[in-house]
């Protein structure tokens, strides 16, 4: 067998070996169609990419059609159907990385690899691409090399990194070895837990002890305690967790499922990365408690592809838990309670953070959201009742079962109990994770992170809101400024409209395409924003952009489309002066100028158009 990806194009594809490899991979999951994500990732790992023949072999093995495999595989950014370089370098493209110099880093990589962005180097060694936020906003510019994370990059690193890679044996695309063990300059993720708090990262740092006592109570009692603590979903939507568990438990079915959403894709968020690194046991405790409470035997963690470097570590934690009797049959000695957890790796799609898309992806399909009803608590994973909760939510649940609802109610506000992990990045001296009680004002937070000169705080990522200084007195809480944890701070001199434009571009990249208003609308919004930042927009253009933003918000199928216009709408509302400053005074400007339209002809003829009056 040839080394994955060492050859490109004219590889003799249907070698018996390749076929045998695919067949073995398909057999390893008992030809279970719902495991297609694992299959295509394993095939890509072995063969370098998903060739047409590999896809046909997968389809044959699963008794489905090639068009079904392509439907799924073509959806994800980290799955490739054409040969790519031995090393795939993906640079994180976000407003934060750009203001930290990602463009210069990209240029340096392009120079060293001899591959333009979006292309593979002539020697077949390197593919260079931009990618959406990789969860390293506190240490940008960052990049992925196959499964390995590089952080705090400067242009001068490119030479050393590329030289090291040229000597390096292949790095796994996806888990197999711990990518962080790879000897590469800047291959290091800093935890950056800046501020511990009383609930999640308790200063004494001892492990949770809530699991065993929890399992001695009845499932109903657990749901009552979680409800009494008023725990709400930490992903941002804030649905009451106790109610979700109760609804799921009440749904009659052969099986129930607990799903942990570790697909933290909102640009600027990285608090789950820190939880997964520092307190994975707490998360697994929370999932196990949930499994017991709602009568599930299966737990699934959907881990974003960007965090593949955590795979091996998390598997070791699971193994350890199985050894300690915290997973498996009769968990913690509780007779009849069997529970185990499987980790499913994603493949690069922001929309999979939306719970119904996540479920589709877990089932081995493209990550297109579902229409509701039915809700996942009725018909979720494999059409069985499923509770999908955020990493942080499970951690909080474990803490509540350890210390009680009243203790938890002692932190935060009436509507938003407990503490919140905020991922703070941008113009502040100490970016990182801060655990703060709900109810903290933006001003208080900015004092805490030592960023008194902020002019814009992007709260909740691109799908959240652009908050202006006049609103810095507002509280971070479900009832006021809600956030899943992303807080991007922009200081004096930052280009508000440029930031909004980059966010608009993000939604173009990440729209799943299933529903028409979002698929087309995100592109039209981005083009409208381009016009503004290019200084070509009239008042009428801005009014039209606002109207379009309204339609996309109101008509889209899922949260992605419903919030895709937020960067534009909230900057229009909170930073009108930024728009006014770029406004053209004319009543109307054509979209295409005469000179632009005639550019080709002008070049051919060697002379421009004759204008009237000349």
């Amino acid at each position, binding site marked *: 067998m040839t080394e994955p990806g060492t050859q490109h194009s004219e590889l003799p594809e249907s070698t018996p070996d390749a076929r045998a490899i695919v067949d073995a991979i398909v057999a390893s999951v008992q030809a279970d169609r719902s495991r297609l994500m694992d299959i295509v990732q394993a095939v890509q790992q072995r063969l370098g990419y998903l060739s047409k023949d590999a896809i046909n072999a997968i389809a044959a093995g699963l008794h489905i059609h090639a068009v079904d495999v392509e439907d799924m595989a073509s959806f994800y950014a980290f799955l490739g159907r054409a040969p790519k370089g031995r090393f795939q370098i993906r640079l994180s493209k976000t407003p934060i990385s750009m203001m930290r110099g990602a463009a210069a880093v990209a240029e340096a990589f392009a120079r060293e690899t001899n591959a333009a962005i979006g292309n593979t180097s002539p020697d077949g060694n390197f593919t260079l691409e931009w990618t959406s936020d990789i969860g390293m906003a506190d240490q940008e510019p960052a990049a992925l090399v196959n499964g390995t994370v590089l952080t705090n990059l400067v242009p001068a690193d490119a030479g050393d990194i590329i030289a090291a890679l040229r000597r390096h044996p292949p790095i796994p695309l996806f888990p197999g070895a711990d990518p962080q063990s790879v000897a590469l300059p800047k291959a290091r993720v800093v935890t950056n837990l800046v501020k511990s708090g009383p609930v999640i990262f308790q200063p004494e740092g001892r492990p949770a002890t809530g699991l065993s006592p929890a399992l001695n109570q009845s499932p109903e009692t657990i749901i009552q305690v979680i409800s009494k603590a008023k725990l709400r979903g930490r992903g941002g939507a804030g649905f009451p967790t106790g109610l979700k568990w109760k609804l799921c438990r009440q749904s009659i079915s052969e099986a129930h499922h607990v799903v942990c959403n570790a697909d933290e894709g909102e640009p600027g968020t990285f608090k789950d990365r820190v939880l997964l690194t520092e307190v994975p046991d707490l998360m697994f405790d929370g999932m196990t408690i949930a499994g017991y409470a709602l009568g599930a035997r299966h737990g699934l963690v959907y881990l974003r592809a960007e965090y593949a470097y955590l795979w091996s570590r998390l598997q070791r934690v699971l193994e350890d838990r199985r050894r300690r009797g915290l997973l498996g049959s009769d968990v913690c000695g509780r007779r009849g309670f069997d529970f185990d957890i499987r980790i499913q790796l994603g493949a690069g799609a922001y929309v999979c953070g939306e719970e119904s898309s996540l479920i589709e992806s877990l089932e081995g399909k493209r990550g297109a959201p579902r229409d509701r009803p039915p809700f996942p608590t009725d018909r979720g994973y494999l059409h069985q009742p499923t509770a999908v909760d955020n990493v942080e939510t499970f951690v909080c649940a474990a803490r509540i079962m350890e210390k009680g609802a009243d203790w938890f109610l002692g932190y935060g506000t009436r509507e938003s109990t407990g503490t919140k992990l905020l991922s703070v990045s941008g113009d502040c001296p100490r970016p990182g994770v801060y655990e703060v009680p709900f109810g903290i004002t933006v001003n208080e937070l900015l004092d805490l992170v030592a960023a008194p000169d902020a002019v814009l705080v992007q709260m909740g990522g691109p799908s959240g809101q652009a908050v202006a200084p006049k609103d810095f007195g507002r509280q971070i809480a479900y009832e006021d400024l809600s956030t899943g944890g992303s807080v991007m701070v922009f200081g004096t001199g930052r280009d508000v409209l440029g930031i909004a434009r980059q966010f608009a571009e993000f939604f173009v990249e990440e729209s799943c395409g*299933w529903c028409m208003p979002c*698929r087309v609308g995100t592109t039209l919004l981005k083009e409208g924003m381009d016009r503004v930042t290019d200084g070509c927009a009239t008042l009428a253009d801005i009014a039209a952009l606002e109207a379009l933003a309204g339609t996309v918000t109101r008509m889209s*199928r899922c949260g992605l489309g419903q919030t895709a216009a937020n960067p534009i709408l909230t900057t229009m509302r909170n930073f009108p002066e930024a728009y006014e400053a770029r406004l053209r005074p004319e009543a109307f400007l054509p979209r295409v100028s005469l000179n632009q339209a005639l550019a080709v002809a002008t070049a051919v003829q060697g002379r421009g158009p004759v204008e009237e009056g000349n």
Partner: protein
Amino acid sequence: MSESRFAFRVDGVEVEATPGQTIIQACDAAGVYIPRLCYHPDLEPAGHCRVCTCKIDGRRSSACTMPAAPGMVVENDIAELNEDRRVVIEMLFVEGNHFCPACEKSGDCELQALGYRLGMAGPKFPYQWPRRELDATHPDIFIDRNRCILCSRCIRASRLADGKAVFGFEGRGIRMRLNIDAEHLDETVIAAADKAVQVCPVGCIVVKRTGYRTPYGRRTYDDAPIGSDVEAKRVKGKK
């Protein structure tokens, strides 16, 4: 009204439904037209186009996927919804390459007919002018993806009605395209009589040698706007 039947209201009109019916099914039966594009009565709903979005007890949802429930209050034919529906139709006209005057489907096209019904004068958005592929390899059928709106009707029909899997999606977002289960259409098992061919709402999947046969004036939507067939039931049924 039999025992299991129940009623809900659509724009003030009482509509009867049976358990399990979606809002659009109940409304179709009652002669109340809700504009729609990707929905087809013979296929499972897929929720792509959002044109059938209604306000259901004040909240927007697609009528093709929402089960009817007793006492529901549905708003359908109201200005704010029709305006948003028209904008979505306009988006589709700039996303693909739709040259109505030259299209075989003109006059029978649901996209075009909805544009008329919803009062679209012309798209106000910038044309995207995408490069899209044609496939005329099959002896009886051609595919012109310039006109594809990614409604998935052919995908669903091929699977469920025809028992084949000729079609699928490929890619995501604005780069999504209609894919087929082979390199070229003539290598697939599709046939002109397939449901997948019949249900295309636009001129993307066309049976060869059938174009331009119907004279102007006798095409599906020449005399009455799209939805008139549904509304006719109400006139007949309840005076």
